[in-house]
């Protein structure tokens, strides 16, 4: 079986940043909390491969640690969305048309009315800014996304014969959802997870850009862009590098998502007629 081109390309792109993020846990070329004002705004050199920022911090190290922040925030937010959204969606599908279904779906609609930025604003206004807020804000926004996807997909599985067989065998609807429905919608959830992951990276960047996400000294790509704004014209490198890091990571994840969809669900394969 041939792997879709997008999947390979996307995995390589994203893998690069994931590797940089993982590597930053044990090693970065310089300490990201160490300020070196004497060497601020230095051009790329043998010592500082991508130069330094306005506080003399090494750009390579900042980008690596920024990858860690972005990926961790987006990944945890997807985790929140899946752990809360999928069971809700499955429960709604199992009790289709019931009061429970109605409550879950209306609850979803309600959360949809709060864009993650608005959730982040609310949380930050009351608890102060932190990376946790960003995780919560994006995570909460992910819940209805996963609930809808899993409810919709589960509804197409419920009328199938093997479900009927399981019911005849006396299995409870919660057990049927876990043992028979979930494995059948897992592919779809993986694809949706990849999409939400990439949206999470973008959202995290936006939140830390406006100061609602990770706080200094924790490096994050959005924060780096906010810092670069004043120096952008004189030192375009400072803004171009973190921007490109975001674009390439998100592009990689989106390509992965498209590729995975093609690979896992041939019915959804993009038909070129």
């Amino acid at each position, binding site marked *: 079986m041939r792997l879709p081109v997008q999947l390979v390309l996307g995995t390589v792109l994203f893998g690069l940043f994931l590797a940089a993020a993982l590597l930053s846990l044990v090693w970065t070329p310089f300490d990201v909390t160490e300020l070196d004002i004497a060497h601020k705004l230095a051009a790329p050199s043998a010592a500082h491969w991508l130069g330094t920022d306005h506080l003399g911090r090494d750009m390579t190290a900042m980008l690596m640690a920024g990858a860690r922040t972005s990926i961790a925030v987006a990944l945890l937010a997807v985790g929140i969305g899946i752990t809360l959204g999928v069971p809700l969606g499955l429960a709604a599908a199992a009790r289709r048309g019931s009061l429970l279904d109605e409550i879950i779906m*209306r609850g979803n*609609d*309600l959360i*949809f*009315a*709060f*864009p*993650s*930025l*608005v959730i982040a*604003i*609310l*949380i*930050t*206004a*009351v608890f102060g800014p932190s990376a946790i807020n960003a995780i919560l804000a994006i995570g909460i926004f992910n819940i209805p996304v996963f609930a809808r996807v899993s409810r919709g997909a589960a509804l197409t599985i419920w009328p199938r014969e093997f479900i009927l067989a399981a019911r005849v065998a006396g299995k409870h609807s919660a057990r049927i959802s876990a043992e028979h429905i979930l494995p059948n919608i897992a592919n779809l959830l993986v694809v949706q997870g990849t999409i939400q992951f*990439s949206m999470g990276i*973008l959202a995290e*960047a*936006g939140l830390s*850009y*406006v*100061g609602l996400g990770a706080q200094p000294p924790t490096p994050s790509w*959005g924060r780096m*862009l906010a810092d*670069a*704004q004043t120096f*952008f*014209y004189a030192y*375009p490198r400072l*803004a171009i590098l*973190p*921007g490109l890091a*975001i*674009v*390439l990571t*998100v*592009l990689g994840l*989106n*390509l992965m998502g498209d590729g995975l969809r093609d690979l896992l669900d041939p019915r959804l394969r*993009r*038909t*070129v*007629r």
Partner: protein
Amino acid sequence: MVRYAATRLISLGLSLMAASLVIFAVVEVIPGDPAAFMLGMNASEETVAALRDELGLTGSLPARYLGWVTGMLGGDFGTSYTYRVPVSELIAARLWVSLPLALYALALSTLLALPIGMLAAARRGRATDYGIMGLTQLGIAVPNFWFAMLLVVLFAITWPIFPAGGFPGWENGAWPALKALTLPAVALALPQASILARVMRSALIETLGQDYIRTARAKGLTEGQAIRNHGMRNAMIPVLTIVGLQFSFLLAGAIIIEKVFFLPGLGLLIFQGITQRDLVVVESVVMLLVFAVILVTFLVDLAYALVDPRLRHTR
């Protein structure tokens, strides 16, 4: 149609009520004593008590909630603690920046995306299609505020066609104001247009495979005529859904983009509100944003029924 609109209207009211309860709970219940929270740790007991009186925090929670909601219905959003002016005045001034910006971006994105999506669908599987799909894939991945920074360097500094930031106000003529909003709107519109063009393309390709299009072609219509007369209307449902969803992203995006261009919009107001712990401002602006999103969802629901008569009779 009237019945459909009425049920949608009821659900609009319920959503607004639920949303306002959530916002009230987060802003006024979770911090415990909002007055103490707003003044910080060093405030004396008398000052806190005075502010509590001023904000009307002495009543019971249900009474305060009702007071807040009925006030808003009458256009009274409370008085800002830091600005010492009615919040409605603060919002009104800034709404004239944020709302035109979001609408400008929505218009740009729709005008750009629909023809591009149609072109890609018409040329599906050919080089044009692959080119467009590649570009939109890139467009989706670009953070709008970063794109905005690039636009400033290109079109405000290198070639000074547009202002790099600030807002002259509408009272100095529509042209300078629109000019100031152009780069922000373009920055906001690009990622949205990329998504919309892809949706338009796949919706149209899906429609073009239908029997009625083949029938239309068999009657002697050209492909272009078949698309215009029969394809478009059917492809509009998913497109409308996305346009509606995009409005909330555009409004949120506008708040972020305002920071790049130093635009005195709702974003600036809300971020100042957060730093100064002005909960009255935060609460009201958030409610307004959520109201906008819920209202657009309602309008999209109505638009569905206009596009697809079948929907008017369901439920």
